[in-house]
């Protein structure tokens, strides 16, 4: 009879354990995440730190608030349908899981019945031979249940993991095709969270909710059916408390949902309060506002404690009350059932089975609130994921392929207008030509729109008006991949990937051999410093290359660009101070790189400008002057002033 107790007992505690377990697993992960970050890049920039810190709990306040909003809509069938399409491929696994589940539920259901029979027919009857037989039956059942359970969990989690893998892959692939402007608008930390934690959340939905809900239902229905078949009136007695249980469950479900949500929001608030106060600690200290800031921090803490205590009270009421009702049900059974046994209308064994069945009825009810929470969280996560999947990819309606042997490399900007946002024109009616093989230097004060030109040529952003032509073909008509393949880009801020140095030159292009890498590195004078590194070309790039000087990084970027041997080269010179020796290497490399290659260079060095075939002076988005160095100087116009301002000192420094 104590089985009743056991079940309820295990359920209440185990459940809270499981809930915490799930919580912890994700938390632990995030914790480890932060710790591994610690190892990977102590010197990361402040901006990145911000991202990291927000990512720690993947609890963006906005995300939590969005969840809140979504919860008002409760369950969204549109989202569910879409989530199920991902599961469709694995229907077979789900089918097997469901079958196994039926089997293991059947085993669960039959055991109390057999117990009753054993007590009635064998133990009380003193039939020890049959008791032995029943013992063996039980053993078989046990092993069968073990196998069914094991297989079911495994099959289900295999399907779940596969689905998550697919969603993640799909999401990441889609994100590769999103326009650059999307990445400008969304903090990296948040995008990473979508690919990692949000997809992980879905896993719970597929494995914990989808099938187990079915199991709960089968278990409930099966128990009721068996009970009715055993004894109708006793079943009615046993179910007498059920209406109260149902009402309580509905009432608590609403309350628990609210309470749980408040906890999440309060935790998100603490997170953002800590992150904000740490970032602003200097200001706080500078103005001696420690006490005030402490009080405010304390408030968020108090709020959190209040929310948590609310949770404790709600769960603390719900579970014991349900458990109490199950004991009431037991008391009723003993009373009515006992009377019937006394009257001889019922055997003791059946009564015993009933007591065990009661516990089975209460088991799923305890889980319900939890399942609902998982469902909610995964709905919110899927909404965020689908939002990304629904963002249109970069446009690519090109029809023309570029060919190695026919490509000459003439570039023309024709009345180009461009703005990152709306009418904030960065380029206004810019027109210029770069004949094949020539080098054009673009100069101008900061904010003149120079860098945009690089972005536009390879269509990282789309222009609003005018056209850009390569060999007389509008770049919109060229396949984007072709376009980018034939344009080599060297950015001012050289991004290095973790991994070997040589892999930073060839990127993922397996076709570029180690010899080729060595050859291009030698050609652009990067060979010298690479060989001096511990490990040479095999050296691991540490902390995103922060151990390399900016000059060395620039040389690496040259090598990278050259390795792909582009017909057109676009480069943004580094502005930062570079030691004289490296500077000479860079100038020499640049000279070799641009020879016989159509080149657009955003120039910051006098030597680069002097070597250019043509100079274009941009100012406030317009082309102001153009010509070669001598011509422009002779004009005594804006170029002359700019020369005096920016390059003259340069010259004196390097002489």
């Amino acid at each position, binding site marked *: 009879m104590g089985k009743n107790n056991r079940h309820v007992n295990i359920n209440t505690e185990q459940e809270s354990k499981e809930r915490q377990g799930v919580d912890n697993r994700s938390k632990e992960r995030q914790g480890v995440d*932060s710790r591994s970050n610690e190892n990977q890049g102590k010197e990361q920039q402040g901006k990145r730190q911000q991202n990291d810190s927000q990512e720690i709990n993947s609890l963006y306040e906005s995300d939590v608030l969005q969840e809140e909003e979504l919860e008002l809509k409760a369950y969204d069938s549109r989202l569910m349908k879409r989530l199920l399409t991902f599961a469709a491929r694995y229907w077979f696994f789900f089918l097997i899981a469901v079958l196994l589940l039926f089997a293991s539920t059947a085993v669960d259901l039959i055991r109390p019945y057999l117990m009753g029979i054993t007590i009635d027919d064998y133990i009380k009857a003193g039939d020890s031979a049959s008791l032995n037989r029943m013992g063996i039956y039980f053993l078989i059942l046990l092993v069968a249940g073990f196998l069914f359970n094991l297989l079911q969990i495994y099959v289900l989690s295999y399907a779940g993991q596969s689905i998550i893998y697919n969603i993640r892959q799909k999401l990441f692939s889609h994100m590769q095709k999103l326009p650059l402007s999307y990445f400008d608008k969304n903090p990296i930390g948040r995008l*990473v969270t979508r690919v990692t934690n949000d997809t992980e959340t879905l896993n719970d939905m597929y494995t914990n909710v989808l099938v187990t809900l079915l199991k709960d239902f089968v278990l409930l229905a099966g128990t009721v059916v068996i009970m009715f078949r055993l004894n109708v009136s006793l079943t009615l007695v046993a179910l007498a408390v059920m209406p109260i249980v149902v009402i309580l469950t509905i009432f608590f479900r609403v309350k628990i949902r609210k309470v749980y949500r408040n906890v999440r929001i309060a935790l998100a608030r603490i997170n953002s309060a800590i992150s904000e106060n740490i970032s602003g600690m200097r200001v706080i200290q500078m103005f001696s506002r420690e006490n005030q800031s402490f009080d405010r921090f304390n408030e968020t*803490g108090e709020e959190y404690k209040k929310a948590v205590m609310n949770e404790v009270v709600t769960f603390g009421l719900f579970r014991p009350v349900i458990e109490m009702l199950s004991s009431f049900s037991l008391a009723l059974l003993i009373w009515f059932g006992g009377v019937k046994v*006394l009257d001889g209308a019922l055997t003791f064994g059946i009564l015993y089975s009933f007591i065990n069945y009661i516990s089975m009825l209460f088991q799923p009810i305890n889980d319900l609130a939890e399942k609902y929470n998982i469902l909610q969280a995964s709905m919110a996560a899927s909404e965020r994921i689908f939002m990304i999947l629904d963002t249109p990819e970069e446009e690519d309606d090109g029809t023309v392929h570029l060919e190695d042997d026919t490509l000459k490399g003439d570039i023309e900007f024709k009345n180009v207008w461009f703005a990152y946002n709306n009418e904030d024109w960065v380029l206004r009616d810019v027109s210029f030509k770069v004949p094949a093989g020539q080098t054009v230097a673009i100069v101008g004060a900061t904010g003149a729109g120079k860098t945009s030109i690089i972005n536009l040529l390879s269509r990282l952003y789309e222009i609003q008006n005018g056209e850009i032509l390569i060999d007389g073909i509008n770049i919109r008509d060229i396949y984007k991949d072709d376009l980018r393949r034939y344009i080599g880009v060297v950015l001012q801020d050289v991004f290095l990937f973790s991994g070997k140095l040589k892999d930073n030159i060839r990127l993922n292009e397996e076709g570029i051999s180690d010899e080729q890498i060595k050859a291009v590195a030698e050609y652009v004078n990067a060979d010298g410093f690479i060989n001096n590194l511990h490990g040479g070309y095999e050296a691991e790039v540490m902390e995103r290359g922060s151990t390399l000087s900016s000059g060395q990084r620039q040389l690496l970027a040259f090598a990278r660009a050259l390795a792909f041997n582009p017909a057109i080269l676009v480069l943004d010179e580094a502005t930062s101070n570079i030691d004289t020796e490296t500077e000479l290497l860079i100038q020499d490399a640049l000279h070799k790189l641009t020879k016989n290659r159509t080149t657009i260079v955003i120039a910051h060095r006098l030597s680069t400008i002097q070597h250019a075939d043509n100079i274009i002076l941009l100012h406030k988005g317009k082309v102001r002057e153009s010509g070669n160095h001598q011509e422009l100087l002779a004009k005594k116009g804006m170029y002359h002033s700019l020369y005096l301002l920016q390059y003259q000192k340069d010259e004196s420094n390097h002489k």
Partner: protein
Amino acid sequence: MSAFRYIRDLLLWHKYRYVLGVIFLLCVDILQLVMPKILGNATDSLEGGTLTRAKLAEFAVIIALIAIGIATFRFLFRYALYGASRSIELSFRNRFYAHLQRLSSNYFNTHKTGDLMAHATNDMNNVTMATGQGVIFAIDCLMIPIAALIMMLITAGWRLTAACFAPLLLLAITVLFFMKIMESTVTKQQEAFSNLTETARENFSGIRVVKSFVQEQKEIEKFRAVNKINKEANLRFTRLMSMMFPSVMLISSLSFIIALWYGGIMVIEGSLTLGDFVAFNSYLGLLIWPITALGWVANIFQRGSVSLERINKIMDERPEISDRKSSNYQADEFGPNKSAAYNEKRIESKIGAGIEGRIESPATSKILGRIEFRNLSFTYPGSANPVLKNISITVESGKTLAIVGRTGTGKTTLINLIPRLLSVPAGTLLIDGTDINDIPLSLLRGSIGCVPQDTFLFSDTIGNNIDFYRDFSMDEVENASRIARLYDNIMEFPGQFDTIVGERGVTLSGGQKQRVAIARAVLGSPSILILDDCLSAVDAKTEESILGDLKKLMKQRTSIIVSHRISAVKDADEIIVLDDGQIIERGTHTSLLELGGYYHSLHTRQLLADEIERAD
């Protein structure tokens, strides 16, 4: 040193709640142990034929009453113990935060925000788990098995008990075994996940390169590889889990079969009554959960102690900058002239309220604003090269000093020393003739209005960001915003001064943010005004008009201004040029122009830049 050094008093503070909670918990356990006995008795009297309807009703009522008792005590112990652990969490987190507030800027430069956040949330949570759930389950896991075992021995003798208990030993071993393998699996799983995260992060950070070199497809393949590893690591984990749970079920059910079988035989032989048989089964049921939970309980405490250790490490960090004990300005942490006993009491009441982190020190004096750097050199801790070398300047009260120089020459470091955001070497920096280390921090910082280079706004109303919780009147706040040329902008906002700024509210432009910081600094007429390149994001016209007002303000107080713009510095009483941590030029605008050095070339370049800027 004890691992509990920063938490012991908090635990002791809640000792009565713990004691009460444990008593309630024991009540639940005892009532749970009574239940099987009652069922057994009912069964025996039923079998013995001594059971009457009245007695049956009595049993039912007793069961119902016990159920009510269990529910009540269960609620009470949860409330008491979880409540205690949450109160400890709150106080501990507050203590942690208060400690962070005392650390110098240098600490935050070398420690990542993300890690500190992880400590304040994840680690804190682990400690809370240990002080709450950990305690509950530890007691459960200890009490219930022992009591149940004793009851089983009494009810059915040692033979049956031993037979049924044997698989449970196996269960404990199995669970511990799984936990052990799980550890390495979880580590691998976490590694895979963090690898996945890192790959995605790196890709998104370098998306420009990826796109420019048409590496999308290759990157997708690269991601596929880590995605796959992650999936496999997860599967390994789930494989274990799918083994573990059914195994636990199998082994615990084995006990029941033995009870049924061997117990049944004993009943048949007559050495056990049916009622004892039923009761025995119930006791067995009580045993399963605590034994299964053993490994998990150990895990909670282990994690809690690791987290506590991590937090302790930060708490051990001694604040680099704090008020000196023997100060000319009589002020210590808990106010002047208060007895130790009084302080003791205050601390205690504050622990209770969870607000002990407040610093109290009344300003007892006023700073006039004479600043003297006396042959000051400064080196950041852990670095070999000094950032500032032999700086000697005196700024008389009410005068203005301007600092120019290239980036990275130590200008901001110099400025940060004045409010002691960095630790100042003794005797090198004097305010009103007193070593800065001898001036109470609150007095010092309260007398300085500083506009830092990078402005920081809190997600709060714009009014609160200017007032910054100093309780100035609305008039004063408005006036300050007028000086900063911000008033008109604010009036255009939907909520005016009550408009929320930051991520959850209105986004301000860089120039607007800088002007909020200026308004914040000028508010309350500080004796010393420090402007660290604070107009860089403001357009030339606004800059001019702000400077006009600021200059009037600066006439009345000691001011230090760092700027790249000649227009901002030319009226200063003294201008110094810093290079590589040293003063290379000093004088007034006119004298420096005549000198023909860095300042002169800066001036010329500025004129050219203005010329270019004006061209349109």
